[in-house]
């Protein structure tokens, strides 16, 4: 294994064993590795086998063939306690734990280290405190889990996994039930934890945008069982996203790193102006079906011909004003709502009906 590699697979096949009808193979011959200090996001369409892969890596279900190495030792050779000191998990589903405080829950993370009564010694207590601090949840120590919001629960469950002091943390859709600010917070937290503690963190998610912005590497698992491993940007450039997520009516926009439903454009518009207002004006126009291009991107008379009109964004009295110029007619709008409503209703006398094929 190369330096820093914590977990490595060798021709790993995952799936389910069935007694008489033969095995269900979800993915075969997977070779990949996790390095210390990196955050890896596992993405893939529903049913591709993300959970199966996570469960197999956590030894919650057996692999069909191949080998998983954890810390240079075969996963299957580790005793349960040894595994628990090297690998911890955070599950998607909400677990009802009864009357337990945040501190009590994180304390259970010390289970692999404590004696037969499970009582925490001084060092355990220090580590529990440290774990709570690391997820910035010191204030949740005395609160009951049942009284916490979903975001707070997720934080203490991550702290619990941290308290196991693992080399690898596996999280199955840790952002699934959180609102957007909490998702950003949790993802940011995990990246920080990976980098600061030199742990390897693997999480599965459907949050493409957050994964692209935070992950050191992505694993894309396709429905056919192929795994694409690389930096997010590389996977965008080399077309792995299209391969994995190709579906009827959906395209991957390499420029923005997001998926769009395929639709006919209503026409091309030129955009004049810079800054935040211009950025969001572009998004608004794209949303209602226009192809928007910056002025400079169009060159030559041929390009100009197919253009429907132009939008210019400038600031006036401290707010943006959007001026629309179609076939010589000028209209100004104070909000993007007014602008998009105007365009959707046919704009300046039906020109927008003329679709550009």
């Amino acid at each position: 294994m190369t330096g820093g590699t914590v977990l490595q697979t060798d021709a790993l096949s995952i799936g389910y064993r069935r007694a008489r009808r033969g095995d269900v193979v979800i993915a075969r011959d997977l070779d990949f590795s996790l390095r210390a200090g990196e955050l890896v996001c596992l993405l893939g369409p529903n049913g591709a086998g993300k959970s199966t892969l996570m469960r197999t890596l956590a030894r919650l279900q057996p692999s069909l063939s191949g080998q998983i190495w954890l810390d240079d030792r075969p996963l299957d050779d580790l005793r349960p306690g040894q595994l628990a000191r090297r690998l911890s998990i955070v599950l998607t589903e909400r677990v009802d734990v009864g009357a337990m405080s945040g501190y009590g829950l994180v304390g259970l993370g010390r289970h692999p280290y404590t004696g037969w009564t499970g009582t925490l010694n001084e060092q355990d207590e220090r580590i529990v405190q440290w774990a709570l601090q690391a997820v910035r949840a010191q204030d949740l120590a005395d609160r009951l889990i049942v009284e916490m919001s979903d975001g707070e629960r997720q934080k203490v469950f991550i702290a619990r996994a941290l308290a196991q002091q693992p080399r690898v943390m596996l999280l199955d859709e840790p952002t699934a039930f959180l609102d957007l600010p909490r998702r950003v917070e949790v993802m940011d937290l995990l990246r920080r934890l990976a980098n600061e503690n030199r742990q390897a963190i693997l999480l599965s998610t459907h949050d493409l945008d957050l994964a692209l912005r935070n992950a050191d590497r992505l694993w894309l698992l396709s429905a056919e069982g192929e795994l694409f491993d690389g930096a997010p940007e590389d996977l965008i450039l080399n077309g792995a996203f299209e391969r994995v997520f190709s579906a009827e009516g959906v395209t991957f926009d390499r420029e923005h790193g997001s998926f769009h439903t395929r639709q006919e454009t209503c026409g091309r518009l030129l955009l004049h102006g810079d800054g935040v207002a211009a950025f969001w004006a572009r998004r608004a126009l794209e949303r209602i079906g226009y192809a928007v291009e910056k002025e400079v991107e169009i060159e030559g008379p041929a390009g100009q011909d197919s253009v429907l009109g132009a939008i210019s964004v400038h600031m006036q009295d401290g707010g943006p004003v959007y001026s629309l110029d179609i076939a010589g007619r000028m209209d100004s709008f104070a909000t993007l709502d007014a602008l998009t409503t105007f365009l959707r209703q046919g704009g300046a006398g039906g020109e927008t009906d003329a679709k550009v094929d």
Partner: protein
Amino acid sequence: MAPGLLLAGLALVALAVFLLSLAVGSVRIPIDEIVAVLLGGDASKPAWATIVLKFRLPKALTAMLAGAALSVSGLQMQTLFRNPLAGPFVLGISSGASLGVALTVLLAGVAVGLGGSTTLLAGISLAGDTSLALSAIIGSGLVLLLVMTVARKVQSGMTLLILGLMFGYTTSALVSVLIYFSVVERIQAYISWTFGSFGGVTWRQLQVMAPAILLGLAGGHLLMKPLNALLLGETYALSLGLNVRRVRLGIIGSSAVLAGVVTAFCGPIGFLGIAVPHLCRSLLHTSDHRLLLPAVSFMGATLALGADIVAGLPGSQLTLPLNAVTALLGAPVVIWVILRQRNLREAFAG
């Protein structure tokens, strides 16, 4: 209040009720006399010493052991199955014992009912008889073996729970068939066994019952750490390094011994095993088994003694069925506790 203090308080209350139970009954005996007798001295009336040592003491000890055993067993089942409705008998332990007793008592009755000889059966005396205890032990022991065998095979706790339930239905169906064909006196004898009683246990029987229950209680307390891990569910427990299958067998084993032994000697005593864990959780506000296990032991012992005192209707010659008393007194308390905390969140039910 500090948990340690609460535990000490629960232990003191148990001791006080223990002394009280020796004092009250058809005859009232002063506490200082009881203490004197217990310490090996003489009572001012010789009859008192006999009453205390021969009748009340074994009964009180039986009640304490049974109450603690059923409560620990109930707590274990509630945690293992993550179900607030679980109790010591969910796996069919009492059904097995009931079937054993029904076979002994009623089959004899069936023979009589079908015109057999009654003289052969006259030798079987009933309530508290060793033959009843024996048939109950065989019945619950067979169920225990069955459950352990199944538990070794099946993956999910829910499957076990349903199997236990189905087994309960099957045995009670068999018992009804036996009742249907039996004679009135035998049916009455069987039914009075189902009422439950701490009074039938002799010193001789206590020599078997007490070590078995103390062993079961010790085993239950040894499992406090795995039980705490199981609060997170089986997947997390596995990821914490717990050998879930082995721990499950251990929990089921100790729980079944506790419930089985109590049922064998005292009859199927309901309610305590389900109620006491709930009362302790809401008193201590914790799911931590390091506290809950000793707490339910003390509280179970106390409540069993209390129920026995009430069932004895102090000052009268009458007694009430023990099972009726535990439920009549206990149900309102549990309802009050549960309504007060508005929901069962402290006991897994979302």
